[in-house]
Structures are given as structure tokens and as C-alpha cells.
């Protein structure tokens, strides 16, 4: 009965201040659109400078095969200097140079060198571009072998098979992770701000001296925002599948259950932040710094956790988003893999219990 009163108060508060509803529904919509269309790791139409010092039949076939590639936008440049300047200014991302003696050395036993310069500032993109150039080079070699009937075939060829994402679309990998980031934002930011405001205005103390128990109080805070958060979650999943064409191969039941666990952990974290800081400025900063940025960088959403230094890998274990990202990526792309989902779900459960328990302890302490 008392709980019902509290819930009524929270719901009324949410309805009166539209900013909470905005956080729960408009934020995921806007963020998913922004991220979904804005974040991509697939380099396409890479601007490339082609310097051919002495055009011949061999260089022409080389140029033609680069022109065919979907990955490049090759541009002829008169000399190396001009190309290097374009590389410095960022006009092109790579330079391919065929020297004077290319055609002569082409028929020598050791072969002719093709010089490639990539702009290494962005190491990841540089690596991908180097890979594309290699692909185009290999395709050209095959072409030459066929045209000239030479026994040039490579002795071993690689047959890559990319499971779960055959087209290697980065969107399929990024959008599920995004859902975790957006939910972190909603969960932590929403409660952090709302409860910090009550502390700041002193209305929290007023609530604490009423006969309402701490558990009821926290439950009253938690439930309405939990419902809001699950609504935001459903919206995100529908958009991921409907708008971004990400396949969903797992079960919705498992997804709903794990989302609920994650949301409890995120809301718990938000409550804890606000209980500890009791100040909207600090709560907001902390929510951004301990919730959003780690979810972005330390969750495996975009950067591979296995490749981080050992110490940083340990730190990632306290980031709830890490477990949720693993569950989401697997549920969307691979299916119901118990060996991935179960341990991560247990970790989420433990984190939810920890955050909510800590909040409960801290809230009670204030009264003494």
C-alpha cells in the first residue's frame, strides 16, 4: 500500500517532467540512428594516389585491376612528390608507386617491387587499406597468370570463412553493442540525476523520516524507471532488426531476461552514484565518466577486450556493459550459445545484487 503511494508519486513526477520520458524513448531513437549511420569500420572508396613513372602494358593492367576494386578510388598523380603531399594533407589515404623499371624487372626472376605508402595515423584503417591493396594485388597476379599462361599460381591459397557475419558488415557487429551502451546511458543517467536531485532538494531526507522502509523506497524508485528502461530496450531491439537489418538468431525470451538483469545493474549503479554524490553536477559527471565512457571503450563494443593489457582486462570485469555486450553480440549474430550467455548472465545478476545492496546500505547509513 505504501509502495503504491510511492510508485504513484514517481510516476506523477515522471509524467510532469518530460525529460525522463525523453531520456527513455527519444534518446535511444536518436542515438541508435546516429550511431547506426555514423559508426562504421568498413572503409569503402578509399582515395588512393597511383604514381606510374613509366606507363607500359604491364602497368596498364595493374591500374585497370585497381580501378575495378570497390574499395578504391584511384587517382593518377604525376610524380611521387605530389602524391606524398596529398598523403600528408589527407587528400589520399595511400600511395602506390610503380617505378620506372617496373616492366623490365617484371620479367626478372625476383619480380618487380610495388611500393605502397599508407597514412598510418589511423593504424586500424591503415591496416585495412593495406589488406585491400594486397587483395587487389593478388587479384591482378591471378589475372596476369591467366593471361600469360604462366605457372605463377601461389602454392597455397587462403580460404577465409567468416562465421556469423559472412559479409563482414561492421554494422552487424556494432549495432547490438550499441544497444548496451544506450541502455547504460538510460539506466545510469536517469536514476543518477533523478535521485541526486531529491538529495539536493532535501526531499530524500523527508522521505527517509516517513515510515516507509528503505527497501520500499528503493523499490519505488526502481520500478518506474525499470519499466521505462525496458520500453527503451524494446524500441532499440526493434530498430536494430527492422531498420538496420541486423539478423537476430537467439531467443527473445533469453534477451528479455538478460536485459532485465542488465537494466537492474545499470539502475542500481545510477542509484548508487546519486546516493554517494548527492549532487547533480557530480552525479552527472560521474554517470558520464563511470558509465558511458567505459561502456563505450571497455565493454568490447568496439575495441577487442582480449587484446587489452592484462590489468585493463581485469578492470573490464567491473563494467556491467561488458557482459551485456557479449550476450547481445552472441544473441543477435550467433544464437543461443549457453556457454557464452550463462556465465555473462550470472555476472550481471551478481552486479545487480551488488549495486542495489550497496545503495541500500548507503541509504540507511544516512539516517544514523
Amino acid at each position, binding site marked *: 500500500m505504501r509502495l503504491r503511494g510511492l510508485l504513484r508519486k514517481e510516476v506523477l513526477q515522471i509524467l510532469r517532467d518530460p525529460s525522463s520520458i525523453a531520456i527513455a524513448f527519444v534518446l535511444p531513437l536518436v542515438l541508435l540512428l546516429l550511431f547506426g549511420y555514423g559508426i562504421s569500420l568498413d572503409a569503402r572508396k578509399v582515395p588512393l594516389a597511383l604514381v606510374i613513372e613509366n606507363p607500359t602494358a604491364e602497368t596498364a593492367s595493374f591500374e585497370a585491376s585497381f580501378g575495378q576494386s570497390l574499395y578504391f578510388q584511384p587517382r593518377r598523380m604525376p610524380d611521387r612528390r605530389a602524391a606524398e603531399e596529398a598523403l600528408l594533407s589527407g587528400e589520399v589515404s595511400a600511395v602506390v608507386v610503380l617505378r620506372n623499371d617496373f616492366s623490365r624487372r617484371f620479367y626478372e626472376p625476383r619480380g618487380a617491387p610495388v611500393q605502397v605508402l599508407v597514412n598510418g595515423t589511423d593504424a*586500424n584503417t591503415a591496416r585495412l587499406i593495406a589488406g585491400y591493396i594486397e587483395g587487389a594485388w593478388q587479384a591482378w597476379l591471378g589475372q596476369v597468370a591467366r593471361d600469360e599462361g604462366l605457372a605463377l599460381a601461389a*602454392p597455397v591459397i587462403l*580460404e*577465409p570463412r567468416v562465421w*556469423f557475419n559472412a559479409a563482414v558488415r561492421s554494422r552487424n557487429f556494432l549495432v547490438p553493442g550499441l544497444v548496451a551502451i544506450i541502455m547504460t546511458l538510460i539506466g545510469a543517467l536517469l536514476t543518477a540525476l533523478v535521485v541526486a536531485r531529491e538529495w539536493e532538494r532535501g526531499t530524500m531526507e523527508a522521505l527517509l523520516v516517513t515510515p516507509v522502509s528503505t527497501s520500499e523506497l528503493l523499490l519505488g524508485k526502481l520500478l518506474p524507471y525499470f519499466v521505462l528502461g525496458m520500453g527503451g530496450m524494446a524500441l532499440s531491439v526493434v530498430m536494430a532488426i527492422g531498420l538496420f537489418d541486423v539478423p537476430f538468431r537467439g531467443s527473445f525470451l533469453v534477451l528479455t531476461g538478460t536485459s532485465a538483469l542488465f537494466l537492474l545493474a545499470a539502475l542500481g549503479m545510477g542509484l548508487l552514484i546519486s546516493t554517494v554524490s548527492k549532487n547533480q553536477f557530480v552525479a552527472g559527471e560521474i554517470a558520464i565518466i563511470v558509465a558511458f565512457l567505459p561502456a563505450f571503450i571497455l565493454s568490447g563494443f568496439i575495441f577487442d577486450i*582480449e587484446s587489452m593489457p592484462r590489468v585493463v582486462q581485469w578492470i573490464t570485469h567491473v563494467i556491467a556493459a561488458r557482459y551485456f555486450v557479449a550476450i547481445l553480440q552472441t544473441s543477435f549474430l*550467433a544464437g543461443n550459445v549457453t556457454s557464452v550467455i550463462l556465465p555473462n548472465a550470472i555476472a550481471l545478476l551478481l552486479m545487480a545484487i551488488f549495486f542495489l545492496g550497496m545503495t541500500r546500505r548507503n541509504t540507511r547509513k544516512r539516517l544514523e
Partner: protein
Amino acid sequence: MWHPIQALVMKELLAVWSDPRSRVVLIGPPIIQLLVFGYAATYDLADVAIAFYVEDAGGDARELEARFAGSPVFRTVEQLQRESDIARVIDSREAALVVHVGQTFSRDLRVAPPASVQVVVDGRNSNTAMILIGYAGSIVRDFNRDWLRRHGARQPPASLVVRSWFNPNLQSRWFIVPGIVALLTLVVTLVVTALSVARERELGTFDQLLVTPLRPIQILIGKSLAPLLIGVVEGTVIVVVAVLWFRVPFLGNLALLYVGMILYLLAVIGVGLMISSVVRTQQQAILGAFLFLVPSIILSGFATPIANMSFAVQPITYLNPMRYFLVIVRGLFLQGLPADLVAQQLWPLALISLASLTAAGWLFRHRLT
């Protein structure tokens, strides 16, 4: 004109500084983040779990396997015994890559080349998958080159000699750490600015400020200078840590960096003041700051290149001050970007800060009357 502004700036700095909690927020998290992100935000692969399913006992198959196992990138976790094991280790993420050498590998290689080697990659992280295929390709290429040499066969008519400029070892850290200068100064400056007026409004001290002899423009300047100072100090600390701790080379002109940083921070402060003058409460201010921060970071090229974004989104990035400052800060760090190329980024930045400060000034006065 200047003395009252000076006093206001002091007051602003003290307001942030005297609250121990906001002091901690300004100092602790940025440093921790710089260190953690500097180490964590990397696309470079290390210690990748690899499993082998080798059905051929021939010497060439063994050699190819040894080349994969011996690469510093990979860590062997398992030798698989049957084909169905591939699904088990990939699904459960025990291995990110399985090298499958079929029964006929050695025979194909001897009798009817080419022999094929299958590489199964976990595509849940498509970027890692692409890079792993790249690594596998270079291992196979080296194998081919040595095999041809050993068997006295002709090498391919052309070979690639790839060099990378500005970052010869292709370390992501050199790309990410300078980016953090832009990221953290943005977060701190924006939040400080957005909250400065909102807090006073909420506490009612803003009215007191208005009845002082200070003119609105003076209040505005005072409210901008304090965050600017905080941002520049914060940025300087990060640059120093980047150079001394992370050993990222700084090849450019330091003065140009500061010109860029100040223009960038002014643009951000303009946005912060706009938020500040529109909202009524601190909560709305933080929400507003957030709604600006997140898209700014995503659409800046900080984590993923702008060139990869969809064509509908790319034009929006021209409005984003972080986009220009990232080019400046990365260019000055890694490429020693000359002044004329820096200027190409500086003028749009100057335009944006002019526009955002003007808009903030207008809103500020408009909301006061």
C-alpha cells in the same frame, strides 16, 4: 571593464574548486580515463586465441601450422580432433580463429597446386575478423615465398613493399591518445559551462549576479573565461602525459596546438552557454550537455573514420568542432602538420566558435529580459 570580470572569473573558479566533490571530478576521472583508455582503446590485436584442426601429417602442413603458432599475435589454445569441434570453440569464443588444414593438403601442394587452407574466423567482431584474415594472409604469403624459393620456382612477377608513414609500427595508441586530448577537454569544459548558469539559477544566486553593476556581456565573458582556463589546463596535462608517459611523438608546432585548442574550447563553451541559458535546472543542463556530447564524439572521427559514415551523416560532421580539432591534434602530434594545413582546419573552427558564442550571447540577453 576588466577588473569585475577578473573577480567573476575568480568566483567561478572558486565555485568549482571549493566543492571537494566537483574538484575530485575535475582531476581524478580525466587522469584515470586517460591512462585506462590509452591502454584499452586499441584496435591492435595481441594474444588472439587460435585453434588448429590439422588432418594432414605432412611436413608442409606442420610447417604452416608452426608459422601460425609461432606468430606473436596468436596464442594456441587447442588442437581439435574432429570437424564439429570447430563450431564448439568458435561459438563459445574459446578461439577467435581456427586454421583447418585438410587431408589432401600435402598431396595437392605436391601434385596439383594450389592447395587450400581454410581459416574460420569469429565474425561477431567484424573488425577483428578482417584484421585476422589479413594476418593469416601474410603468414600464407610468407610461406608461399619460402616454399617457392626452396623448390627453385619463379617468384610472382611483382611484390608489394608496404610502408606506413607517420606511425611506422601502426600502433593504435598513437592515434587514440592524441584524440583523448580532444575528448576529455570537451567533456570537462562543456559540463562546467553548461552547469555554471543553471546552478546559479537553481540556487537563486543568478538574480543576485544580475543586480550587480556587471553588464550581461561582462557576465558572459566571465562565465566563458573560467571554463576556458580549466579546459586549457586540462588539455595541457593530457598533452604532457601523452608525450612523457605514452611516448607519442609530438612533431608539430606547440603554439598552433594552443591556437587550435582555444578556438575549439571557445566553440564548446558557446554551446555550453547556450544550453545553460535555455535550461532551468541542472538536470536539464546535464541532459542538454549529454545530447551534445554523445553525437559530437560519435561523429568526430574519434573512434571510427568519418569517411566510413553514411553519406547522409557526413555533412553533419562539418558542424562538429571536435572533427577539426581532432585533425589538428593528430596532425600536430604524428605528422608535424605544417601551418598552412592547420589553417585549413582553423578557419572553420573559428567560424563555429564565433557563431556559437554569438548565439550564446544573444540567447543570454534574450532570456534575461
